[in-house]
């Protein structure tokens, strides 16, 4: 992208008043800047789930990891991000703020699903999303297995994503999702099936 194209994209992002659209447009711009240099950014975490569900879960930052042959070095990350006029950094080259949003550049992606990524084509670039199977199993694990054993916010988040896949809004490979939930990283297949059953019941109740 040329400097003028980046400035034009920023003007659109600045005028966008909807948080989720604004964050997705910024993710598209940042993804494009890295992709045109040969890197493959992937949006992970709560922002990926927000883009999948519109679930009002996301905070003010979008987490980006890397797949492909190699991740950008810190120097490359800084050089690429500094193309965006007015951008500020926090904590070295990890967190970048622009237009009252933050983008966190993290490490290589660590996912268990067989790389069935999602993709949203924004006006400024493609946004690649962590496989929904990984996002769902990971959120069930965070909600019902991690640390204290139950986190209400993560549980609500998992339920919203489960509702989206049960209704077919987001395609899912159930065998793959169960395999990911059962893997040693999460080991939460029982909890995964419980969330699925609970959400199926709640959806059935709401439709009766």
């Amino acid at each position, binding site marked *: 992208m040329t400097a003028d194209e980046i400035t034009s994209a920023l003007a659109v992002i600045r005028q966008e008043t909807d948080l989720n659209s604004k964050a997705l447009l910024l993710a598209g711009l940042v993804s494009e800047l890295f992709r045109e240099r040969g890197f*493959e950014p992937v949006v992970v975490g709560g922002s990926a789930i927000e883009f999948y569900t519109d679930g009002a879960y996301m905070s003010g930052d979008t987490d980006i990891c890397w797949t492909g042959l190699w991740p950008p070095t810190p120097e490359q990350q800084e050089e690429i991000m500094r193309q965006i006029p007015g951008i500020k950094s926090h904590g070295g080259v990890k967190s970048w703020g622009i237009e009252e949003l933050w983008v966190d550049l993290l490490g290589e992606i660590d996912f268990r699903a067989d790389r069935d990524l999602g993709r949203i084509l924004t006006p400024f670039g493609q946004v690649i999303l962590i496989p929904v199977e990984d996002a769902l199993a990971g959120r069930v694990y965070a909600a019902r297995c991690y640390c204290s054993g139950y986190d209400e916010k993560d549980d609500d988040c998992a339920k919203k994503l489960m509702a989206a896949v049960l209704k077919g809004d987001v395609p899912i490979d159930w065998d793959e999702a169960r395999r990911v939930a059962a893997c040693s990283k999460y080991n939460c297949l029982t909890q995964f099936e419980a969330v699925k059953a609970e959400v199926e019941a709640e959806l059935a109740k709401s439709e009766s």
Partner: protein
Amino acid sequence: MTPTTLTIKPERTWTWEQWQAGRAERRRLGNLVAPKNIRRKKSEGDEYLRETYGGERGPKFNKPFDPSADED
């Protein structure tokens, strides 16, 4: 737009227009099984978020297609 080198199935791809068109339904569906706004109260290393958003972890939700989104 630079093409990705990753293999992504067509059924897992949404255009901008498709994504926008599906938002109200996705939100309606999610609200059947969980509260409208479910943002975490805290997470590791979010001090710069609170600095940016007046003590909160993010800006207010503002969904033009769902004016009631900010109610709770």
